[in-house]
């Protein structure tokens, strides 16, 4: 890839980023508005020695991705709406068995089959809690086509580094729009690969935290180091256990390997927040409407800032807590009935007045809607 400026679609940038990150396996069941990711993976993976499989459904796709990753390949699947729901059980399996994988969810209007061709951001909470039980997960969300490329690479890197499923949470707007991008030289991209055990190891304990970072080295199936993988709670040997001590140690380690590394995992952008009395928080394509609105209001001399989350989960409480005391209002703009706003309220702990701008009719929130809601919030008695 040369560094020439080209017009590229969001879904296309996702596939380019995935291949640059080292994706060599894709299993999926195509669904609007994520279909181009499957199409382009089918076209491009064989050319780099990778494999593409169209499975019978989303459940099997997620299973195949986990299997491929256990065998040592970087694996991805992409879906939307109902497909994301179907993948949840196996996503939980990957969380507990610590199998790196990337799941792309291009959000469309829901619930159920909802609005297949129209945008939404209604899966914020599902991305965090769609699978049952306490589990860690990382979710990143791009606003620009170039950022789709960058965050897809980052999703693979984080997933490999922390042995955790990583979700690339897109929306129909950023997935289907085309915009000017200049892709970086592949040699300049930082790629992270999972830790592997010493190949001469005599007794491999697949879930032993031997480095003290909470991330056990992971052997590839088929390379002579067999081990047991189960969705049951397991001890360091990988075999099931119902011991309270083992259970507590495992769940604690799974959570700590993520929550002890927030400096590395969290990613957000603060714009004009230094002197702002009102900060608008958003992510994905909505952040572009907010950017427009903020620039218009700044030109009018209004002290408005914005906070754009690129890592959605774990939630960046610190981004809210570090806002200075002249900030009075936080407004959360999202294409749903109000999901991320609840996290912002929890972070605000009553320090800020928190309001939402919500749209759930299949249309992107427009800049003028953000401006009028901001005016309303700032002029409240």
């Amino acid at each position: 890839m040369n560094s020439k400026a080209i017009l590229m679609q969001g879904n296309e940038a996702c596939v380019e980023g995935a291949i640059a990150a080292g994706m060599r396996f894709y299993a999926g069941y195509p669904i609007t508005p994520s279909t181009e990711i499957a199409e382009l993976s089918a076209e491009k993976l064989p050319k780099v020695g990778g494999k593409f499989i169209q499975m019978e459904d989303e459940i099997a796709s997620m299973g195949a991705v986990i299997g491929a990753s256990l065998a040592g390949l970087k694996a991805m699947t992409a879906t939307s709406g109902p497909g994301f729901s179907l993948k949840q059980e196996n996503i939980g399996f990957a969380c507990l068995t610590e199998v790196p994988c990337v799941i792309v969810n291009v959000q469309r209007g829901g619930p159920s089959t909802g609005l297949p061709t129209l945008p939404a951001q209604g899966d914020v909470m599902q991305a965090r809690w769609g699978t049952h039980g306490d589990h860690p997960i990382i979710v990143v969300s791009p606003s620009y086509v170039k950022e789709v490329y960058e965050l897809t690479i980052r999703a693979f890197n984080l997933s490999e580094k922390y042995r955790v499923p990583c979700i690339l949470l897109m929306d129909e707007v950023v997935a289907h729009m085309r915009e000017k991008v200049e892709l970086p030289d592949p040699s300049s991209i930082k790629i992270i690969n999972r830790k592997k055990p010493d190949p001469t190891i005599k007794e491999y304990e697949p879930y032993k935290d031997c480095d003290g970072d909470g991330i056990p080295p992971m052997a590839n199936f088929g390379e002579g180091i067999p081990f047991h993988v189960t969705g049951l709670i397991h001890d360091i040997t990988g075999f099931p256990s119902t011991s309270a001590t083992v259970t507590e140690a495992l769940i604690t380690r799974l959570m700590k390997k993520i929550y002890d590394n927030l400096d590395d995992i969290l990613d957000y952008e603060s714009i004009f927040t230094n002197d702002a009395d009102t900060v608008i928080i958003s992510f994905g394509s909505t952040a572009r409407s907010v950017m427009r609105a903020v620039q218009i209001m700044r030109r009018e001399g209004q002290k408005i800032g914005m906070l754009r989350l690129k890592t959605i989960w774990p939630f960046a409480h610190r981004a809210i807590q570090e806002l200075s005391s002249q900030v009075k209002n936080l407004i959360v703009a999202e294409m749903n009935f109000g999901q991320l706003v609840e996290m912002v309220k929890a972070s605000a702990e009553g320090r800020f007045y928190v309001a939402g701008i919500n749209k759930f009719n299949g249309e992107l929130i427009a800049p003028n809607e953000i401006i009028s809601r901001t005016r309303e919030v700032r002029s409240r008695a």
Partner: protein
Amino acid sequence: MGERTEIRLSGSGGQGLILAGIILAEAAILDGKNAVQSQSYGPEARGGASRAEVIISDSPIDYPKVMQPDILLTLTEEAFVKYKDNIKSNGIIIIDSSIRKSEPPVKIVSLPIIETANKSVGKVIVANIVSLGALIAVTKIVSKKSIEEAVMDRVPKGTEELNRKALYAGFELGEFQQKQYKNK
């Protein structure tokens, strides 16, 4: 044209307007500008209303959708009726001459786009490329050199000459109209 120019191409599904939008955005990039292209479509592949949007700007583009177009192209009466009132006051509407004009809110340019594609070029499917040629001759939103390069890059192999002919026919339509407009 200001720093941000918004263009809406509208008609019915299958007329190739989304491809026209992609080509227009690519031509803008060849001109060294920023461009964003998006579309709206329903579950159907053909028929039904189809809309492609392109934003061209010298600076980075934030909001990726058209708010109020500077340029509106419509190939069907249905699209014209639907979109004609949402246009900037100094905007321009280019319509196929088969559309009955009603109450022009702004400057309207009516050109025999579909007829030209059908009769002079010989294939109605290139109406999208004729549209692009006409749009560029009238608005000069991108250079002729860049649009030609972008068309050649995107159209299927073996159809280059047909599409070049369509593009030139569009240029002619637009330029002829512009001359007449000046002479009035």
